[in-house]
């Protein structure tokens, strides 16, 4: 069963790693991706990032993405945590963990989870600049390409 959380509060990545493997001896590797707020948006300095989401649909979409990963790889643990609200540069936005008996499944599942989380879950980012301006982040075609590579790529 995957751990899925959408929250405003920060979280302890070490504690999340420990929770995935607590009491288990069958796990051989845990893949981990952590996304953080960058301090620059092109040539403008970023004061904060606003993360908006669609409550209800977000949790359903994340559960479906985790279920897809569990179907494709023999995962022994899976954690998806996404923060919302106002975040400042350096803060953690997202964390994805995938535990498996062997590293390849753990690493591939981690890449899959973050690629799909970026393109198939209803979150939107707005950059607030230090000069007072603000702009909604545009979706990148490269993110869609990264996500699409998993469509036909079944292990």
């Amino acid at each position, binding site marked *: 069963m995957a751990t899925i959380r959408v929250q405003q509060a920060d979280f302890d990545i070490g504690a999340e790693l420990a929770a995935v493997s607590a009491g288990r001896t069958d796990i051989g590797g845990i893949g981990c991706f952590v*996304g953080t707020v960058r301090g620059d948006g092109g040539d403008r300095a970023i004061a904060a990032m606003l*993360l*908006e*989401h*669609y409550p*209800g*649909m977000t949790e*359903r979409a994340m559960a479906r993405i985790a279920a897809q990963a569990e179907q494709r790889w023999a995962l022994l643990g899976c954690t998806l945590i*996404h923060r919302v609200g106002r975040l400042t540069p350096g803060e953690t*936005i*997202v964390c994805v963990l995938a535990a498996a008996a062997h590293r390849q499944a753990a690493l591939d599942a981690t890449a899959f989870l*973050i690629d799909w*989380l*970026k*393109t*198939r*879950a*209803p*979150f*939107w*980012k*707005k950059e607030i600049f230090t000069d007072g301006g603000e702009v*909604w*982040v*545009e*979706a990148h075609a490269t*993110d869609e390409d990264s996500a699409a590579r998993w469509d036909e790529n079944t292990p």
Partner: protein
Amino acid sequence: MAGPGTLRLLYFAWLRERLGTAEEVVALPEGVATVGDLLIWLCSRSPAHAEAFSAAFRVRCAVNQEFAAPDAPVAAGDEVAFFPPVTGG
């Protein structure tokens, strides 16, 4: 909640800002059977709506919290959300 004969419409990100509302309940418009029909009707409501929704390739949709294509059916009681392409992660 959407009552009998109505749709609950939700808007997110810049679509919410441009329309000045996050949520509204409307009577299911006559002749609207799909997401595409609903988009055409929304564009007809005001110049601001037309401006926001006319960039159809930039607007995505979900019906009852599932991503939906323009040909997806829409019926009374549904929750229909419109939003820009997602940018999480």
